[in-house]
């Protein structure tokens, strides 16, 4: 492999500032939406006492696990010694930190009392996976920044592998922890399943790689930096493996549920009777987020066509948001099994009368806050690649030989 040269993203200033202006405008609208929700109270959202986590949480959780998955690219290069991935490490680290910032911002701004963030940082209940996640998220950011330093600074190069290994273990813990936010909730039928943790890990790999590929292809195309077909196909095929992995876990998740008769109702609700959630599951999670991209990525022609690979990545992301919608909102909308063997005829507080699901429709401010979080991640990335040397000058096939392995130095 030839020596990789990194260079700042030097697209035409007009285009660059235009891009920043668009992102800042989206962030501004998102910030205004957050202010509005905090000022008036959550009654202006679609959230209720039945569906307590709404659209902001879809975006926040999606961004957090995507951030973790983005760093996978760097891990493959440094920890597993795949030389072809090494030039991608810096962008991977930057995008991971940026998306995590975006996700956390959404999470914090949706709190009932966001001004009490200091309370959350000074009062801990270590039985809570949420409290653990506060450390996992902030720690991830610190480790990823340290990891970036080892990749970019020659003096730090020798720490690259140990720091990279720590980052890998840390982000696996982070995604496991995020999946466990849901998996460890015994109250709700859709949760209470440890398999949600590894499923979130797989989801993070896929969503992260899809987001990474889109950013990589966009930045390279804008500046006409060469991105070799071998490199592209390699990343695309890897994305295919991760997408297939999600589908596998999706099947196992539902099989786990139908193994016990007490969950038949829930599974048939998601798969058949859940209305919008059934549609989100089949069309969003399975078809758009799974089968279609899988078909494109493994297609002999389409899988090598840039436009189609980008489309597949976008589909994985859309499917990911749909999956989060089903996991986070569908699971709350489905009534809790308080009285097995009984039908609730009347309730003073919407306990699933006649098995009815709780209503939820996302409000505009919620969506704007979520999209604002995505824009924060992209803005940090856009500024980062412009001012620092994150992007390799070229990823042409003759520069990066995907078959190169960095051999471990004999001790």
């Amino acid at each position: 492999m030839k020596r990789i040269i990194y260079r700042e993203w030097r697209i035409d200033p007009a285009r660059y500032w235009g891009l920043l202006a668009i992102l800042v405008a989206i962030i501004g609208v998102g910030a205004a939406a957050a202010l509005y929700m905090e000022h008036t109270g959550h009654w202006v959202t679609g959230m209720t006492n039945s569906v307590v986590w709404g659209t902001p949480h879809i975006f926040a959780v999606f961004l957090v696990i995507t951030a973790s998955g983005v760093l996978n690219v760097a891990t493959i290069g440094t920890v597993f010694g795949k030389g072809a991935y090494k030039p991608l490490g810096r962008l991977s680290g930057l995008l991971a930190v940026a998306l995590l910032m975006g996700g956390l911002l959404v999470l914090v701004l949706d709190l009932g009392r966001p001004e009490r963030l200091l309370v959350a940082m000074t009062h801990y209940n270590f039985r809570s996976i949420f409290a653990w996640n506060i450390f996992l998220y902030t720690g991830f950011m610190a480790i990823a920044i340290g990891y970036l330093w080892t990749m970019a600074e020659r003096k730090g190069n020798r720490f690259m592998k140990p720091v990279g290994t720590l980052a890998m273990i840390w982000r696996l813990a982070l995604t496991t922890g995020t999946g466990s936010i849901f998996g460890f909730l015994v109250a709700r039928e859709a949760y209470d399943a440890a398999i949600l943790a590894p499923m979130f890990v797989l989801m993070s790999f896929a969503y992260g790689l899809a987001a990474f590929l889109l950013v990589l292809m966009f930045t390279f195309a804008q500046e006409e930096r060469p991105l070799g077909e071998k490199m592209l196909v390699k990343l695309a095929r890897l994305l295919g493996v991760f997408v297939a992995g999600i589908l596998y876990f999706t099947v196992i998740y539902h099989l786990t549920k139908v193994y016990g008769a007490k969950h038949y109702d829930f599974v048939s609700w998601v798969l058949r009777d859940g209305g919008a959630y059934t549609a989100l599951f089949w069309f969003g999670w399975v078809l758009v987020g799974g089968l279609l991209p899988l078909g494109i990525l493994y297609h002999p022609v389409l899988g090598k066509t840039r436009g189609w690979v980008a489309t597949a990545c976008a589909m994985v992301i859309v499917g990911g948001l749909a999956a989060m919608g089903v996991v986070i909102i569908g699971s709350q909308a489905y009534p809790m099994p308080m009285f097995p063997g009984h039908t609730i005829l009347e309730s003073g507080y919407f306990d699933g009368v006649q098995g009815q699901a709780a209503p939820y429709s996302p409000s505009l401010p919620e969506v704007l806050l979520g999209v604002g979080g995505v824009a924060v991640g992209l803005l940090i990335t856009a500024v980062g690649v412009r001012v620092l040397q994150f992007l390799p000058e070229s990823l042409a096939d003759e520069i990066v030989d995907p078959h190169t392995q960095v051999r471990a130095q004999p001790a």
Partner: protein
Amino acid sequence: MNDVEETIDQERRRFVGAAAGATTALVAPGVFLHTVATATPRSEAVTSAVRWGMLVDTTKCADGCTACVTACEVENGLTLQSKPEGQSEAMWEQQRSVWIRKVKLQDDVTGRITNLPLFCQHCEYPPCVDVCPTGASFKRADGIVLVDRHTCIGCRYCMMACPYKARSFIHEMVEEKLTRTPRGKGCVESCTFCVHRLDYGDISTACADACAVDGHGAIVFGDLKDPDSELNQALRARRSRQIRADLELNTGVRYAGI
């Protein structure tokens, strides 16, 4: 000359009088409140010598009766909540805080109808306390599960974790509230077993009282640890169970007749 002196004297008198009045007005409530505070058991820490609990006899719970719900809402200032301007009735019903609700069930096999009130079950192992990141959700030594409104950040994870949907989030600005039940936008709350009564030595809850007044007597409140309490006697006399007993939360609220 004399006149002037007299005027001055009068002013001084008025001033001294006003100052004394103002001082009294300023200090007296403090002295009074201090007396109240030290005169009641509230200044003593609660102990685990008691565990507050409840038995709901569903066979006595009347269809269509909402006496317990109304009493709770009045007692805990829930009636003071007002629908934000511009919000639809349907959404507001889903967003307003509710501490106790009536549920009517039908057995799928036998068709038997059961009515019961549902509220915080004051678990011995409360999932809401486990998941709360800041420890705002806590259980007192006497078994009452509460929310510390000073440390609640409004993350709603406790609401995700509660198997009884017992908790409510305050979605709107709070205009009016009672001193005994402070309430603020962005925090979570739920049934407190009328802790403000207990802390002043009044062993009763608004819901149980209202049910008794209405002649049903379906709710018995008391100390689960006291073998002679009315609650324990009722629990011994009737077979009861916990809702979602499969989770082994050892709830403080038991139901008979379901």
